[in-house]
């Protein structure tokens, strides 16, 4: 009898929490790795317009981005500029950019490439139209006008 009593008085055995931190760290690294989305540093200011009828962009790996807006640095002027990859570009560079984007993808996926245009809302349509004409010439017909979901504000 005495033997049983001794065992009962010990209380709950402590749970070893030593490996807990390892598990959490594993989670942490997992999230850190999956959220490193290739993000180009913007050198043009892009504040997308608002729209209500927006659709999600599917297949992120098949999207190439074109940014248009005013340069972030004031010294570079206030005229709208085009950014491709990490540098300023002109309308004439678009065709080469699209060709290179195509070459970096599998042949089967090339037809599915969408060009997402991230354009600042104060941009004038002239430059946008020039870009669109270039895209038409090179045959990149699938485009997406990047917009934030929400109601457009009245000026």
């Amino acid at each position, binding site marked *: 009898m005495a033997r049983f009593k001794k065992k009962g008085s010990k209380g709950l055995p402590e749970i070893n929490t030593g490996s807990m931190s390892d598990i*959490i760290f594993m989670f942490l690294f997992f999230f850190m790795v999956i959220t490193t989305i290739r993000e180009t540093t913007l050198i043009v200011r892009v504040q997308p317009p608002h729209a209500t009828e927006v*659709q999600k962009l599917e297949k992120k790996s098949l999207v190439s981005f074109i940014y248009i807006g005013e340069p972030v640095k004031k010294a570079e002027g206030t005229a709208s500029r085009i950014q491709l990859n990490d540098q300023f570009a002109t309308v004439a560079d678009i065709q080469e950019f699209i060709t290179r984007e195509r070459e970096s993808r599998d042949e089967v996926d090339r037809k599915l490439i969408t060009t997402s245009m991230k354009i600042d809302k104060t941009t004038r*349509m002239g430059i946008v139209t020039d870009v669109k004409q270039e895209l038409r010439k090179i045959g990149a017909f699938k485009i997406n006008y990047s917009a934030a979901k929400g109601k*457009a504000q009245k000026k």
Partner: protein
Amino acid sequence: MARKMPQLNTGSMADISFLLLTFFLLTSSINTDMGITRKLPPPPEDIKPPEIKERNIFTVLVNQNDRLLVENKPSDISLLRVQAKEFLENPSNSPDLPEKEMKNIPYLGEIFLAKNAIISLKNDRGTSYDMYIQVQNELTAAINELRDKLSVEKFGAKFSVLTNEDYIEAIKKAYPVTISEAEPENIGGK
């Protein structure tokens, strides 16, 4: 004999890493890219564009001051959706609005729809991109609302929640996105 190292208290380690975890979870907004999808037409060829009757075209002009001219009358962005819907649907079969005909579309059967209604959008080089997107948005909304209406009527569900590919194709065929963009003009000179 080496002295035994005093054990470190690792109990709070989990808390610290939890803190880091939540920090990363909160700051890394997996930004979903959204936007209005469009398909550009192929480059113009030297063939003559087909003649389209005036009644089948819905002209939307945007000038460099972001003012609208719809069907040769000044208009406002808030009215555009209703006007576009009326044009595309032509509910009263009015002779000023697009011609209608019986169309036989699989899964929808015989329905009376506009034959060849085209929205013609023309903007100036000085038009702001914000305005352009708003116009595109209203026109898309008009088409989406008509698609929803037809979809609810025929399949009992909104177009955006349809899962059957054939049904989606049928609705798209009934109300295609027919927005034609003309080459812009440079009147504003910006």
